[in-house]
């Protein structure tokens, strides 16, 4: 088990593959850098006093963070796809939808373009099939 690695992973190929999955934004270093302040904002909602302050005046609370106006708007709109485009990661953003008393299923469903009812029904029936959803280039 501890023998030396024979083959190195080519980092450029590795990262290129991450962008080849339909409907998915892998939380790469590039996204983590872009989303640093957005994710740290979300982390701040782990404290009750911050949650209260945020809910009382979202705009004022967001203005305390180094966020673009677009990122602030995405938060106020609860547009999770847009937040992920701004470098957000779902486990960080979970602090935001938890502050709203919403579940992971609600947040995930909201990103699919489906109604909550249709999303829940799809999950009950066995979830989204991977067929045709694995690779943009390979179309399989």
């Amino acid at each position, binding site marked *: *088990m*501890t023998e030396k690695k024979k083959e190195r*992973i080519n980092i450029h190929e*590795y990262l290129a*593959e*991450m962008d080849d*999955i*339909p*409907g*998915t*934004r*892998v*939380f*790469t*270093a590039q996204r*983590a850098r872009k*989303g*640093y302040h957005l*994710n*740290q904002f*979300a*982390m701040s*909602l*782990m*404290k*009750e006093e911050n949650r209260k302050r945020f809910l009382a005046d979202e705009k004022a609370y967001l203005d305390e963070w180094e966020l673009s106006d677009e990122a602030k708007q995405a938060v106020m709109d609860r547009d*999770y*796809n847009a937040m*992920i485009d701004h470098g957000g*990661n*779902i*486990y*960080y953003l*979970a*602090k935001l939808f*938890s*502050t709203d*008393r919403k*579940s*992971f*299923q609600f*947040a*995930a*469903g909201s*990103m*699919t*373009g489906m109604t909550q009812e249709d*999303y829940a029904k*799809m*999950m*009950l*029936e*066995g*979830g*989204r*099939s*991977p067929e045709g*959803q*694995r*690779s943009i280039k390979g179309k399989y």
Partner: protein
Amino acid sequence: MARVTTGITSSHIPALGAAIETGKANDEYWGPVFKGYQPIRDWIKKPDNMPDVIVLVYNDHASAFDQNIIPTFAIGCAEKFKPADEGWGPRPVPDVIGHPDLAWHIAQSLILDDFDMCIMNDMDVDHGCTIPLTMMFGEPDAWPCKVIPLPVNVVTYPPPSGARCYALGDSIKAAVESFPEDLNVHVWGTGGMSHQLQGPRAGLINKDFDLDFIDQLINDPEALSKKPHIEYLREAGSEGIELVMWLIMRGALGEEKVKDLYNFYHIPASNTALGALILQPEETAGEALEPRRVLSGGSFAEA
């Protein structure tokens, strides 16, 4: 001498805890999940099976670690760990009580074995750590055993490779076996199975991948450990990558054959497919449970 007797896998999704806390554990939706866990709960209660210590492998979901500190492998060496406030207030569960002597022993052994661990002495534990305890032990006033939390980064890319996780398990086994006290140690691998929580592809479930993964985990972990990240991402969804942590558990059971005493798979639990296993090294394995394999939900409903 301490020994790793058992490997367990479990889902750790927060909705499972919420189902218990809101009295929904027996309803139509959650009933089959808790029914599937009941045999494990009954099994683990028996004195011979109850661990003295669990090395609980999980991923911190941006709770103890934010974007400022991202350790690939960390180990909790504290006396105790408090449940984290993840936005809902902390889960209403007991503090997790550590085993600092064993934890520090494992930490030192792992570093000497070329795993450069991050040592944590002040760390809150999130649902990744506490949900599996709730699923196995219900709602006690205190957890019935000690727990060494071992968080793995599977959130910010790249996470560790499957091969590295498998090798870490092997080193954990050696570390435990060199601890002089006579302890029954479990290693739990948590998270998974297939799921995606983001983007238009959210809700992905891949039953065939999951069942093959379980089969390979039991029978050919060496080959499974070579699976590249991109395959997890394509086949098991962006959050399905959590499954690499199961290889740490499997590595800790040794390279010889293991027996699955219990093998439960269910679709869906909220957004995810769920797998709960009890594995033991074949040489020292106990009796398999009856039934040994339970598949429920999704397309199994009609089966």
